[in-house]
């Protein structure tokens, strides 16, 4: 570890914090339907959309209608994307004549992109046509992110409103998320990416004759326009197989820094939007500080181990662990990126997590296992941490001798039932699918690495799918019928079975009165609450994974120290 390395991490955090307030304010205005600078251009467009689709601005949804609309919207998304994938051979924009995708892989990919996971069982540069990239993937990158933001905003309204049943209009929230937030940010970012060297064209792959006379086929495509929404919307599915490690997707340290900021940008700013909408910005900052603390623990541990290097290579060469990392990013930016992408449910990678040291990769795994609530995926991370906050408030509320309340809303049996359910689903899903893979031949054939690292690959795969992250210990061969179907199901369960109880909590909270606070009320804006929230996240959300982690990265670490290889 070097001082300059630590400094990079600190500067990154400072820049991020500086961006939170303006974007948080902007998003609050967008969802409160207050004036923004983009209104003159976007409002007419928005009205046109509503007219064409028969959406009424005045009609709001209660939680069931909101959830129904969301489910239908996503179902249509899955069907359309599935059809595109199955028919891409006869669709236009396919200069390199890629074939149709097999049914199981098409199911996996369709679910993956709609659920904001972007798990990649395929290799982009020799499977996916430009049509699919643009009208399939890019579209779902926008829509799945917009869905997440809408759900988060609906959940925030459960706290900011009182004694009503409606949480907003899903369609309106999706359109506003897309038009006001995702499109402008992606557009601006794309241009910078292109300037830095990310390709953007519809040309067929280029054939090159190298200096030493070999023939290379170099992939092309509309990469930049998807790269930006990939990070902004915490989607993470790369245009090319190597994802953001690929020099075309992430050519310079500047694009790398921008990507790291873009991944956290909306998720972090949502805490401020939340604070503003509930009229107490400190509430948002408290959540953010808790996230930041957990984030920094992960970054520092990862950086420490990666910088230290593989003890098995001691004396052979100098430097930290560079296997799977790019020279232009080095160790700090790779460690930082790996933690950001797993905290945020993004899943884009600028280095191969599979080749990280055991305790260098463990926090990627832990971040996903905790439910990606450290900033988290756009929207999903935010309602995730709110569920943990409700849980923390419940335990702490009892400890101060009051029926628990969060932001003036009483947390009662019904909310606890749904919160526990929503938090339970992720560990259940991860454990059950991993266990299945561990005892079936199809499952055991997946991992590339032997020994405990192979187990880590399995548990990482199902954590990533269930948590809708999309990154992988990529050695695992996941493009098999078994893994396509199981990870596909895990993605569906991890996204939608969590959303429904979450919305039920919102639906129940929005009906309640906001109780004014007194000195007997548990303060949710101080350091004690931050510590409490972190402890609840680690114990209620994390302890359950300890046995699995022991059999994966933890034991691998001790084996490695003892010089064992597999």
């Amino acid at each position, binding site marked *: 570890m070097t001082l300059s390395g630590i400094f990079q991490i600190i500067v990154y955090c400072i820049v991020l914090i500086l961006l939170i307030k303006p974007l948080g304010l902007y998003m609050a205005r967008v969802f409160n339907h207050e004036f923004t600078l983009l209104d003159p251009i976007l409002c007419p467009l928005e009205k046109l959309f509503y007219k064409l689709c028969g959406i009424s601005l005045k009609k709001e949804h209660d939680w069931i209608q909101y959830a129904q609309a969301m489910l239908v919207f996503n179902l249509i998304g899955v069907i359309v994307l599935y059809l595109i994938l199955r028919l891409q051979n006869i669709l236009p924009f396919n200069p390199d004549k890629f074939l149709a995708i097999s049914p199981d892989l098409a199911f996996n990919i369709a679910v993956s992109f709609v659920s904001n996971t972007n798990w990649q069982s395929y290799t982009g540069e020799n499977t996916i046509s430009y049509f699919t990239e643009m009208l399939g993937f890019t579209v779902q990158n926008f829509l799945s992110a917009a869905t997440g933001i809408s759900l988060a905003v609906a959940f925030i309204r459960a706290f900011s409103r009182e004694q009503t049943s409606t949480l907003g209009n899903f369609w309106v929230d999706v359109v506003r998320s897309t038009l006001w937030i995702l499109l402008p940010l992606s557009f601006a970012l794309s241009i910078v990416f292109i300037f830095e060297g990310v390709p953007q064209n519809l040309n067929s792959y280029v054939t090159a004759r190298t200096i030493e006379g070999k023939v290379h086929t170099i992939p092309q495509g509309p990469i930049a326009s998807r790269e930006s929404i990939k990070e902004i919307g915490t989607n993470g599915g790369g245009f090319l197989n190597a994802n953001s490690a690929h020099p075309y997707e992430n050519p310079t340290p500047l694009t790398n820094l921008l990507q790291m900021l873009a991944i956290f940008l909306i998720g972090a700013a949502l805490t401020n939007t939340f604070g503003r909408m509930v009229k107490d910005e400190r509430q948002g900052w408290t959540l953010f500080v808790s996230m930041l603390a957990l984030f920094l623990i992960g970054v520092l541990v990862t950086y420490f181990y990666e910088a230290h290097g593989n003890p098995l290579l001691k004396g052979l060469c100098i430097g930290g662990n560079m296997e799977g990392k790019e020279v232009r990013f080095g160790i700090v930016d790779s460690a930082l990126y790996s933690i950001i992408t797993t905290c945020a449910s993004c899943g884009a990678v600028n280095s191969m997590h599979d080749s990280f040291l055991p305790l260098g990769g463990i926090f990627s795994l832990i971040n996903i296992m905790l439910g990606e609530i450290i900033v988290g995926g756009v929207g999903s991370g935010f309602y995730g941490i709110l569920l943990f906050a409700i849980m923390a408030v*419940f*335990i*702490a509320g*009892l*400890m*101060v*001798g*009051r*029926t628990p309340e969060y932001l*003036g809303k009483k*947390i*009662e*049996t019904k909310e*606890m*039932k749904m919160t*526990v*359910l929503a*938090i*339970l689903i992720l*560990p*259940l899903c991860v*454990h*059950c699918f*991993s*266990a*299945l893979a*561990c*005892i079936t031949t199809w499952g055991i054939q997946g991992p590339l690495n032997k020994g*405990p690292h*192979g*187990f880590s690959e399995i*548990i990482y795969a199902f954590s990533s799918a269930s948590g809708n992250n999309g990154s992988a210990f990529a050695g695992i061969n996941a493009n098999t019928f078994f893994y396509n179907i199981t990870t596909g199901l895990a993605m569906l369960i991890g996204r939608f079975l969590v959303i429904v109880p979450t919305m039920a909590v919102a639906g129940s909270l929005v009906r309640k*009165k*906001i*109780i*004014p606070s*007194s*000195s*007997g009320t*548990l*303060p949710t804006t*101080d350091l*004690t609450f931050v510590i*409490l929230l972190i*402890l609840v996240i680690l*114990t*209620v959300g994390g*302890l*359950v*994974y*300890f*046995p*699995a982690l*022991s*059999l994966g990265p933890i*034991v691998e670490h*001790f*084996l490695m*120290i*003892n010089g064992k290889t597999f």
Partner: protein
Amino acid sequence: MVFKEKKKLSIDWKLLKQAAIDSFIKLNPLKLYRSPVMFVVEIVAFLTTILFVLSLKNLNQDNPFFVGQITLWLWFTVLFGNFAESMAEGRGKAQANSLKQTKVETKAKLLKNLESNSYELVPATDLKKEDLVLVETGDIIPGDGEIIEGVALIDESAITGESAAVLKQSGGDKSSVTAGTSVISDSIKIKITSNPGESFLDQMISLVEGATRQKTPNELALNILLAGMTVIFLIATCTIEMFSIYAGQHISITILIALLVTLIPTTIGGLLSAIGIAGIDRLVQHNILAMSGKAVEAAGDVDTLLLDKTGTITFGNRMATEFIPVVGVSELELADTAQLSSLSDETPEGRSIVVLAKDRYELRERNMAQLNAKFIPFTAQTRMSGVDYENTEIRKGAFDAVIDYIREKTQNSSFEPPKDLGLAVEKISMSGGTPLVVSKNNKLLGVIHLKDIVKGGMRERFEELRRMGIRTIMITGDNPLTASAIAKEAGVDDFLANAKPQDKLNLIRNEQAKGKLLAMTGDGTNDAPALAQADVGVAMNSGTQAAKEAGNMIDLDSNPTKLIEVVAIGKQLLITRGALTTFSIANDVAKYFAIIPAMFSRTYPELQALNIMRLTTPESAILSAVIFNALIIIALLPISLKGVKYTPSGAAIILRRNLLIYGFGGIIVPFIGMKIIDFIVNFLHLA
């Protein structure tokens, strides 16, 4: 006196014995399923018992000595949980039983109708609502009821512990009687007001009996959390077997079960109902009967207390201290008129006026009958009293009430009182006194200064409440000025002046609409609607039956300031639950460090690095964890019964302290505990 003896927590061997027996009876799965955590422990204990039998017959590879010990400790875990509940029940029951006893033995003299004097002897437990009974000197009152005929001196010491007898009579605010009290003199006829099993006594008994006890909302929510964690750990433990197979090793079911039981929140699961029962029990020790556990919890949430000024904050009696006449009226005339109007006024204020007039002006009491006077009593609506005689009409009452009265009488809506009267009234009010304006034939004579005396120690109590985050509102019929002065003197946060019964109800509704939870005390029939509306309504035992039925708690001592204790007990109940939940969850960290390395000691001996406690062998490590897990339930039983220490302070401070003690303590304690147990286990060669 029954209750006061039980206040200290002494070891009662009879109670312990009964609790030990009960804990076996409670093993019945049909009863245990109500506690999901302990139910799971019982199932797995049953499983290990089978494994133990199999290992004895060499039908599996387990070591019978090891499996046997694990089995034993798993059963102990369940038994300890049951024992905790039985102990809590036992303590409450012991108190309820002595009352129950009197009830069962009591015979009631059942009357056919009000007129008849012949009765039929029936057991008290057979009495139904609306039954009429005769109670004569020396009889025990057989059921909660209302006196409909007669006056009697009643000894309520069996319930309140107060030895002074109370006079009760039909009609008015002193007509209700409670089962278990006895008549010292005279005879009364009572209409029974509750069915068998519905009296306060019955309610209380059922509250301390775990089996029939309804779970409170918070308890339900907590149970869901605990059940959720149990499910998570159940899945985690089951899947470890598959993960372990991938690594090339089977793990014995006994060890998996040991891991499961140590991870699921058995500590709080076992103590949860004991904590709830003990909370109710603490109320009983303070001579308060609660109608439901929900009411006790609500008490912890209360953020506003409504307190009647008179009798609660101040001594009931205001004393006349001064007569201030208006210009043109002599002090003597005022005193004379005031005395006249008060001769038939039996209120302490009325009496004090008569006394003051006599002391200061040597005015004799006159015979009202001679004057042919008609006394106009005080009502809450008119807020005046007075007397009519020989074309003379005297009124005394609140300033604005008298002015309004005169305006109405003289049909002169622009009637204005003399300036000096207004000043005098204001001066008295500012000083915390009550001005009583006197008029004679629509002419204002002056004002009587009534002084209110605030009880000692009230200021400190309100200060304490403020620290707990609770606002106090004083309710008074006084005018705003008087009210504000007394409020200031007593240190309450707010007051409602000129309060009529309806205002009290409105105030409660308004505060509730703002999301506040309110507690109040009351005794009169006109308090009943407000008592019913309040979230916590404590009725005075001395109050009317209507009031008692409307409230959800009854204070047997009829001490209105006891609301403060009620709130503290409610809070303590919740805190105890929260603290032990935190402790229970925090324990898991250490248990992992004991069991995980032991579990994989064969496949991955390298994991011994996690054995930071340096537990001797894998077997002793697992055993220590299971033993610790069982013993901690017993170790925490006293805290569950007594309740976690609660000192009134802000939520932030309480949280910080409890998080430190039960959160971080919960992480550290098991490390030490298991190390010690491991030492003993090895010393005794148990593993």
